[in-house]
């Protein structure tokens, strides 16, 4: 099963497997980065809400 899946992935000539699969690495790093940013932005938002509460 896994061998089959792997064989399929190797056959794929899409952009993710060109240039030594560097685009794949790039995409994964970008996903992590975007995830981190979403997290930091949400913490930021929560603190803003707390600050607004404290003002009232």
């Amino acid at each position, binding site marked *: 099963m896994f061998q089959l899946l792997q064989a399929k992935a190797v056959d794929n000539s899409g952009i993710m497997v060109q240039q030594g699969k*560097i685009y794949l*690495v790039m995409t994964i790093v*970008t996903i992590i*980065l975007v995830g981190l*940013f979403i997290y*930091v932005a949400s913490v930021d938002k929560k603190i803003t809400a707390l*600050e607004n509460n404290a003002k009232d």
Partner: protein
Amino acid sequence: MLRARWWKILSIILLVYTCTYGFLVKVPKLDDRLQESIRNFFFHVPMWFGMMILLFVSLVYAIKYLRAANPVHDTYSMAYASTGLLFGFLGIVTGAFWANYQWGSPWVGDPKQNGAAIALLIYFAYFVLRGSLIDTEKRARLSAVYNIFSFFMLFPTLWILPRLTESLHPGGQGSDGNPGLNGKDMSANMRTVFYPAVIGWTLLGVWISTLHIRVQLLKLKKEGLL
């Protein structure tokens, strides 16, 4: 400034650019030693730049605290020191990982490595000091003084001693210039990613620091200390 949005968006744009174009930009192929790993320059080196900038900001607020004894300045100083230390820690871990494949061992006792480790340990003591004092005013005053000392320890540990001896890093004895930032050594292509990377990572550090600060200020307000 703490709640302004434009520089946070700038940080996102710069880092998305770094993490995409950083993998695509053409890097020079000198010999087979570094290969593609020179791209670490966009990730490992900005950690140190970010650390130095954040620790400098921390120093400025430590001095400000000593001048005015305002607890807000102490809060700023602590937050920037902790994010700076985080960056330094990430720098040392990524460096060890890179060194493992580049120099054959995660820790080769390179003067830059040793110096950075000493500098980080000195800053660790800043937090030990903070943690060991209960009286807020005394804690703020003593840690501000110690903060100034630890920043100036960066001069010998990071900026002077490693350049006087032979080093595996760029910029040791016999190779002129700055270990991280040697404009003439870096290809123009790489510079188009490197400088935005430094700014982007630093802004992210500032962002995280401001979150620390805002939570701490809320706490101070709640306790009626502000």
